[in-house]
C-alpha cells in the first residue's frame, strides 16, 4: 500500500508575508496534493480576505477556513482576520474568537500547535518573514512531535525577527530562501509515496 509521509503543511507569516508565500505557492502549487493551512497576520479591513485575493491562482483550491469544515487534500486554507485557526483531532477546522496570542489573532502558534497534535510526524511547518515572535513555540511543538520544520533564511526575509526567533528556538530540518524551500518541499513531497 502507498502511504504519504507528509499529510499537511502549515505556514506562518507576518510583515512582508504575502509576497513570500505567494512566491512559494507559485513554485510548489503543481506538486501539492495535501492541504496547506496558512496564518498571515493581517489587520481586519475590507481587503483582508486573503482567500479572495489568492483564488485566482491557477490550479489551486483556495478557501477561507470555516468552522467544522473537513480539511481537504490539495486545498489551501487561510485563517480569517480576527480569528485563530486550529485543527481538531477529527481533521476538521475550528475558528476561535479567544484572546490574541503574541499580540496576534490569528496566531501562528495556535495553528502550529494544534496541527502538530493532529498530524504529528506527517506535518510540515514553515515560518516566513515577520517582525514578531509568533510561530517559534508552534514550530518547537512540530519538532517535538516529529514533524518537518522549515524557516525562511533571515537574510532573505523582508523582516528577519520572526525567522530568527524560530531559529533560536528550533534546530530546523531546513533553512533557506523561498526558492530553496520550494525545491526542498518538492523533493519531500515527491519522496513521500
Amino acid at each position: 500500500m502507498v502511504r504519504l509521509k507528509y499529510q499537511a503543511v502549515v505556514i506562518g507569516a507576518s510583515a512582508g508575508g504575502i509576497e513570500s508565500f505567494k512566491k512559494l505557492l507559485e513554485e510548489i502549487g503543481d506538486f501539492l496534493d495535501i492541504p496547506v493551512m496558512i496564518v498571515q497576520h493581517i489587520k481586519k479591513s475590507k481587503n483582508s480576505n486573503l482567500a479572495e485575493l489568492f483564488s485566482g491562482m491557477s490550479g489551486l483550491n483556495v478557501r477561507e477556513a470555516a468552522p467544522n469544515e473537513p480539511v481537504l487534500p490539495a486545498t489551501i486554507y487561510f485563517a480569517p482576520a480576527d480569528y485563530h485557526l486550529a485543527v481538531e483531532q477529527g481533521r476538521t477546522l475550528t475558528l476561535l474568537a479567544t484572546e490574541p496570542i503574541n499580540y496576534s489573532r490569528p496566531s501562528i502558534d495556535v495553528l502550529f500547535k494544534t496541527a502538530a497534535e493532529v498530524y504529528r510526524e506527517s506535518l510540515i511547518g514553515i515560518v516566513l518573514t515577520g517582525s514578531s515572535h509568533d510561530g517559534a513555540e508552534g514550530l518547537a511543538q512540530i519538532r517535538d512531535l516529529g514533524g518537518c520544520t522549515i524557516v525562511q533564511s533571515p537574510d532573505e526575509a523582508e523582516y528577519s525577527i520572526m525567522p530568527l526567533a524560530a531559529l533560536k528556538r528550533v534546530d530546523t530540518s531546513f533553512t533557506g530562501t523561498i526558492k530553496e524551500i520550494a525545491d526542498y518541499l518538492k523533493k519531500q513531497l515527491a519522496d513521500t509515496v
Partner: protein
Amino acid sequence: MTDREIELENENIEVELLIEALVKKHGFDFRDYSRVHIKRRILEVKQRLRYESISMMIKDIIYDREFLNKLLLSFSINYTEMFRDPDVYLFMRNEIIDLLRTFPFVKIWHAGCSTGEEVYSLAIMLKEAGIYNKTQIYATDFNDKVLKMAEDGIYPIEYVKNYTSNYQQAGGKESFSDYYIADDNNVIMDSSLRKKVVFANHNLVTDGVFGEIHLIMCRNVLIYFNKNLQDRVLHLFKDSLCNGGVLCLGTKETIENSTAESDFETLDKKLKIYRLKY
C-alpha cells in the same frame, strides 16, 4: 512513543474525564464543544493557577465550587469589542431597525452575551433610532459571573479608542463619549443603556425556547460548537423567533448546511443576517 507523545495522550484522556466530571457533577455539558477550544482553556487555567496536572483539576471540579467558577469563566469569555464588525451594525441600523419599528413592542434576545460589549452596542443603536423605550433585551449567558460583568458594564479604558472607531464606522453620529463615564483605568457604561436589558442565565446546550422574539443576536458562539449542537441551537432560535424575525450570527458562522437552513431567508450572505420565513 516519544515523551511528548505520551504526555499528549495522557492530556487528552484527562480532558475527556474533566468534561465528563463537569457534566456529571454540575450539568455543564461541553461534550459537543470544540475539543481544541476546551483543551486550550483547560491548559490556560492549569498554567495560571499552577496545577500539576489536569487530573488535579478534576478533583477540584468535584470538591471546590470556587474552582468551578474560575474554570467556567475561562470557558465563557470571548475576546470581543463594542460594535465588533461595524458593517453588521451599519446594516442593522440601515435595514433592520425600520423592520423592528413596525412592531408595537420589540423583544430582542442576545444569546451568549459574555461580558456584554455587544449588548451595549445594540442598546446604543436602538436608542439613537428612537425605539429603545419600546424594546426589551434579554441578554443571556450560561455563566453568572460574565453576566455580572456584563451588567456592571465596566471596560478597560485602553479599548475605548477602538470602540469609538467601530461606533463611527457602524454609522454612529453622536459623540461616543456621551455613553460612558471614565476614571483612570476604566469606563463605566451609562446606566440608561441597561434600562431595558434583563441579564438572565440561559444555557444554549441544555435550556429551552425563549418566546416570540423579533431579533436574535448570537455572535461567535456557534463557532465553538460541533455540527450537532449547532443544529440544535439553530432550531432553538427558529422556535424562539416570531415569523419574519431576524437572526444575526457571527460573520464566520452560517445556517448553510444546517437542518434549519430552509426555514430562513438570507438578508445578507456576508454579514450572516437571516430572517425566519413567514
